[in-house]
């Protein structure tokens, strides 16, 4: 039980639909930026997206080919572990289902890796079945570098650190291998509705 904070009433925003805010989150109108290091700037002619790991044959797409893949536009709510949520964000990108089409793998997990060295792990079932995208547009514009452009993973049903900025590939794995924040004490799965913020939640 939490102690009552004497004199605290809070500042509830009537516009926020409580059913869309996971426990402990507040609704943010801006789009805060969080990352552990400098923003990488990879020229698009050096950019490619790679599926590798325990696969029969790795697949990769250079930027122009990646843009040619069937794309989807989705409007989703996103939830950052630092407590802000942003409702109704619109993204365009390629579904992870599309990227994994025709990929033969016994993997149950994958590690998303990024320019700059960032990694994050997710279960395959958390990014397939229409649940995740590699997004390159936000709100109808090319995704800005500070928000993860040219492309970032988008896994809106998990805390946003799973939506790796500057993503360059997905490495399929048999075992679950903790990524960057997951080794620094954050939860391995990160379901905002279960408030899985930190290890032990």
């Amino acid at each position, binding site marked *: 039980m939490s102690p*009552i904070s004497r004199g*605290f009433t*809070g500042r509830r925003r009537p516009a926020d639909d409580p059913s869309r805010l996971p426990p402990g989150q507040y609704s943010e109108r*801006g*789009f*805060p930026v969080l990352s552990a290091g400098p923003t990488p700037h990879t020229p698009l002619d050096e950019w490619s997206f790679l599926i590798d790991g325990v696969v029969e044959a790795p697949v990769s797409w250079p930027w122009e080919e990646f843009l040619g893949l069937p794309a989807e536009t989705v409007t989703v709510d996103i939830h950052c572990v630092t407590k802000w949520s942003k409702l109704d964000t619109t993204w365009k990108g390629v579904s992870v289902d599309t990227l994994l089409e025709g990929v033969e793998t016994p993997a149950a997990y994958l590690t998303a890796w990024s320019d700059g060295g960032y990694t994050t792990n997710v279960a395959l079932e958390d990014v397939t079945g229409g649940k995740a995208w590699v997004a390159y547009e936000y709100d109808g514009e090319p995704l800005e570098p500070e928000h993860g452009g040219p492309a970032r993973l988008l896994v809106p049903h998990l805390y946003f650190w799973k939506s790796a900025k500057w993503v360059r590939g997905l490495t399929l794995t048999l075992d679950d291998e903790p990524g960057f924040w997951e080794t620094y*004490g954050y939860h391995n799965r990160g379901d905002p509705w279960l408030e899985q913020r930190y290890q032990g939640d």
Partner: protein
Amino acid sequence: MAELVPETARVTSLVLDLPGWPGHRAGQHVDVRLTAEDGYQAQRSYSIASAPEDEHVVLTVERLQDGEVSPYLVDVLRAGDELELRGPIGGYFVWEESLGGPLVLIGGGSGVVPLRSMLRHWVTTSRAVPVRLLYSSRSWNEVIYRDELVGYSAAHARADVRFALTREWPQGFTGHTGRITRELLADVAGAPDGRPIIYVCGPTGFVEAAAEWLVELGHAPGRIRTERFGPTGS
């Protein structure tokens, strides 16, 4: 809550008595959770301002104009009140003795808070390691921990604390005036082949600019650790 210490007009330090506190590393933060009588809760993260060696855990809070939690912490909370918090949290934006140096700290506004924890930790463990702090603030009156920070340069041969003031500065101020520049960062961070470990904390635009310049100057991205706060404004 043991004590409230006003730092500047908008910034207050909360000195906490935490029985059972497991200890922390310099640079980590805590989650503070407030609960209203009807059960409504709000939580936010705050950097720890004290060193692991300090007797009390101290949080330094800037009162945000439209904030929900910070105005309560700064204006309503009193000594003796209970505060629910969780932590320490975060393991990357952390400096400890084993990471060595040279240690370069770049702070904007209240982004200086975790850097101050690192400086205090440096004083007790690592005075042989060169440390430089560049702290950008709007004005001299808004410099948090001013006397303490000024004192480091005077007291320690290997400490170099510099200020940049962006809006107003007192007569005779010898630091940098205006926003930080690439040249200033080049000077503070030193040569890239010195392999400094660099911590940058502040508002997003400040951190973006500083980190980008440091990379352009030749510092390894893996040696630059950042922490950002605030919306992007877009």
